[in-house]
């Protein structure tokens, strides 16, 4: 391990010494290096404070002399400053050339476009002064020419990022919930076990029954409880799984242009009540209804023959085309809620960093 540390020093001796004031990490353990994207020269934070607090000043590195401001200094993400610079260039170029795959007709076009952009970045990063200025000019021209498209694509990109983040968050949350549920359940199980054991001990101490029968009863109770628990167990997880699915479908929902306009209230909840198997007619010729049509006694009190027809027809046809067996088997065969595999991986993430020990429940003693 020590060797590693040494080789690191040998690899890059400037890693721990400020090139400006030559102070090193040995003397100043809190040494921190900052860079300015103007010239990417590294110096320690003390130097930055010392030189640039009183306003813009030239870079202290010999032969550089670029005017720098304190505001521009920040910590480098990469150890290799060439890469840091390249990434900064990429950020700039990427903000302009942000076309998306679906804007292109063929894959070849898209790939050609990608290569062109890559070439441009390369020119800016590695090229000499001339190629660099040409490339910068290209970049500027493209930006002028395609302002609208760029803005549109930026917006879409942001939105997508937001959605992705939200989805991930939902997944993480679901995984956490499930983990918690499992832990809680295990604890309950354990507490239950202890309680049963205690009660058995009490009974053995107080009651005047044969010890063996009590033991047998206790065993039975435990078995019953465990099986009940097992049966219970799948339900919460399943419901959680479906909750998860809802979280996942956010992605689909969001893509809709606008929410559908609200429909008028429907008391039947969308159920269609018009008869499908027959057409209700105004009159049915029937001899024993003939009297009812004319008889004033029948006409009284708002009695309507139409009402009677409708009810009779409904009763005659109701239940046709309904197969109870099929529905029962359908219900039994309902697919189990499929849990999105993403959640499982997310759960594993949490398991890996968590501090729960499995050792403790390695051996669950039964009562006797």
């Amino acid at each position, binding site marked *: 391990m020590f060797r590693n540390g040494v080789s690191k020093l040998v690899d890059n001796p400037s890693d721990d010494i400020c090139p400006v004031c030559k102070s090193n990490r040995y003397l100043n353990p809190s040494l921190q290096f900052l860079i300015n994207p103007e010239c990417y020269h590294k110096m320690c934070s003390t130097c930055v404070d010392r030189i640039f607090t009183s306003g813009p000043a030239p870079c202290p590195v010999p032969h550089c002399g670029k005017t720098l401001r304190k505001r521009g200094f920040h910590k480098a993400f*990469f150890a290799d400053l060439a*890469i840091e610079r390249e990434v900064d260039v990429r950020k700039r170029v990427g903000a302009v050339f942000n076309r998306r795959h679906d804007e292109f007709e063929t894959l*070849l076009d898209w790939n050609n476009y990608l290569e062109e952009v*890559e070439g441009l970045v390369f020119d800016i990063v590695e090229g000499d002064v001339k190629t660099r200025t040409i490339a910068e000019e290209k970049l500027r021209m493209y930006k002028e020419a395609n302002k609208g498209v760029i803005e549109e694509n930026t917006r879409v990109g942001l939105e997508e990022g937001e959605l992705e983040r939200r989805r991930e968050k939902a997944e993480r949350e679901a995984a956490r919930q499930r983990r918690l549920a499992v832990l809680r359940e295990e604890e309950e199980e354990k507490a239950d076990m202890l309680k049963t054991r205690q009660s058995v001990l009490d009974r053995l101490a107080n009651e005047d029954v044969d010890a063996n029968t009590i033991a047998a009863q206790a065993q039975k109770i435990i078995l019953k409880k465990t099986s009940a628990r097992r049966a219970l167990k799948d339900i919460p997880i399943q419901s959680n799984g479906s909750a998860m699915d809802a979280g996942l479908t956010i992605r689909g929902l969001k893509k809709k242009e606008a929410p559908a306009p609200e429909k008028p209230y429907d008391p039947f909840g969308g159920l269609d009540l018009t008869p499908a198997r027959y057409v209700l007619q105004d009159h049915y010729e029937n001899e024993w209804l003939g009297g009812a049509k004319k008889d004033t006694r029948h006409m009284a009190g708002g009695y309507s023959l139409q009402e009677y027809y409708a009810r009779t027809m409904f009763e005659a046809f109701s239940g046709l085309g309904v197969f109870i067996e099929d529905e029962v088997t359908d219900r039994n065969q309902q697919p189990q809620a499929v849990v999105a595999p993403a959640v499982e*991986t997310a759960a594993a993430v949490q398991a890996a960093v968590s501090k729960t020990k*499995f*050792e403790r429940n390695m051996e669950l003693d039964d009562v006797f």
Partner: protein
Amino acid sequence: MKFNIGDLPVLFPYPRIYPEQYAYMCDLKKTLDAGGHCVLEMPSGTGKTVSLLSLIVAYQQYYPEHRKLIYCSRTMSEIEKALAELKALMKYREEQLGHKEEFRGLGLTSRKNLCLHPTVKREKSGAVVDARCRSLTAGFVKEKKSKGEDVPVCIYHDNLDLLEPHNLIPNGVWTLDGLMKYGEEHKQCPYFTSRRMMSFCNVIIYSYHYLLDPKIAERVSKELSKDCIVVFDEAHNIDNVCIESLSTDITEDSLRKATRGAQNLERKITEMKETDADKLKNEYAKLVEGLRDAEEAREEDAFMSNPALPDDLLKEAVPGNIRRAEHFVAFLKRFVEYLKTRMKVRQVISETPPSFLAHLKEYTFIEKKPLRFCAERLTSLVRTLELTNIEDYQALQEVATFATLVATYENGFLLILEPYESDTAEVPNPVLHFTCLDAAIAIKPVFDRFSSVIITSGTISPLEMYPKMLGFTTVVQESYSMTLARRSFLPMIVTRGSDQVAISSGFQVRNEPSVVRNYGNLLTEFSKLTPDGMVVFFPSYLYMESIISMWQGMGILDEVWKYKLILVETPDAQETSLALETYRTACCNGRGAILLCVARGKVSEGIDFDHQYGRTVLCIGVPFQYTESRILKARLEFLRETYRIRENDFLSFDAMRHAAQCLGRVLRGKDDYGIMVLADRRFLKKRNQLPKWIAQAILESEVNLSTDMAVGSAKKFLRGMAQPFKPKDQEGISTWSLRDLEKFKEKQEEESIRQLREGMADAVIGGRVTTEGNGHPPEEDAHEFDDDELEASMMELNDD
């Protein structure tokens, strides 16, 4: 002996057969007929390999399809053993049939084991041999040679080109030694002979990795046809092999090397641009077209192959931003730098591939898609540049493989960054584990491609867990018990010492002096009564070391020393093999010896202690996995979420599987005998998780013993074993001659005939009623009801 299973004539190269071997073969045939997968657990030392081979070879030769057999085993020695068995079998068949069959059986192992080149074969590391071999045999080297340039080549490899490509080696079974000899005689490379002949032989025997590790499998095994029969022997840790083959670890050191590799690549590219720009242009043009065309140039000399690209992706073109060589190298450098930065974090991080990719994109503008093509693009570049010293790029290749995997799989994988080696370490030594959680991912292509996959081992209980974890369905799932003429092994569970203190290697009590002393007493007692060799298994190296030092303090080792030589397994392979050799010598001469080893170590997996080499095996403690490992925790969580396998179940079954594996080491045949002691309180409740053949042999009176009781029954057992035992006593019970087999078959037939007859009788009654019904059409309506009723009552009768 020769007998029939169904219509299939089987030639079995021994005069006697074990009943379980016959049952095993019948189930195998059933599986092959049905064209599905199966999981079979067969006791160790009952001739699993020979029954497997003789049935499948008979199957191959009898049916016109001639389905090829791919037999995968775990270690070199097992591969050699299987080849020798196959050779003996084919010899026997030849004698019996009177003519030589058109048959070719070959083994394949690494270049290191098969190389004949005078200087290359002297290299010690496998990776160096591979690299040097490639630099001598690659396609471009040959091209250069034909142009008249003076480049070093391998004469053994080049001689192969002079032969007919489908007949590099004559028919027959070639053991690895035989192959080497043949190669030396005819000056041809055994490795490439074997590789190229693979599609022309009937049986291939090689290591798991050639089929499971996608990095190798794609190159070695892609030409095998769909109807091949795939056998995984000793498959009890196949899930771990699957997982390991898709996991990578990245360290700071490997990243440094990768940077250096990228710099080298960059230099080579500039060199090539100056001298031979056409080549780069050619490559570029090809990549514009798509990977599939580049694919054609890919051959056995390829530098590495893509670990995971699905086929349809290969048809796609390489993304534009890594098409040019210099762009790609910059891309790699950026990725490596990013990883370096990530490694500087000083806390444990665990994240999913999508979140890793999101972070990566935010900081380096590397998209998922080019990342996915990383491995493929690197291979292509290395080929174009005609690099010879490939070992310099190993680290870069690892990083590229990692890039491809992380971009290809969203689920079932996890990134864990561990900055310190242990919780107490002060000096950081960061490791980025990219670990696969789902064993089904690596093995899925195997199940998708081959119609019959047979998974078999001495210990794969519980049988239903494997299909679940590996994601397949079985036709047959069977565990066989062991038929014995006498009780030739004595499994015992010792739960307390002579002083009635419970013994356990549980975390809380493992270092208590009373427990350690009781384990010591157990060891001394058994070292006194065991003739010849004794093997002791501990759950871990750490525990073994601590307990040995405590024993030393208690004077227990001195006591043991009076009776036996004491030898210890160490993590170092060479030291261990020396210890093993000494152990064997000691067992053959004089008092015998004790070998102290670790349940998950090398000794427990594949070293046999037959006869005098092992009379007692003592398993101290339940060999649980190290549960504090983050990777294991993540995997357990994943298993629970995905397959509803509870953590405790998984850990416990895994531990018992390893315990059984240890116990099985001493019993290597039916004339062998041995004592098996499981010394831990917790074994009492885990008894039913042992494989059927062991669990069946444990008597109810021997599950909760104290040390002195165990000693008593062991002495009694050994006295019984000392009685003369003639092979004749076994006949008809645990070994069958042809006559016994026929008798059994007759009985079986009678049984089936009887059943059939009963069925027939039922059918006749039913049938008569129906004909009656048909005979009187006018009364049809009335009779239909009767028929139904009668049939219903028949059904009830049948059920009875």
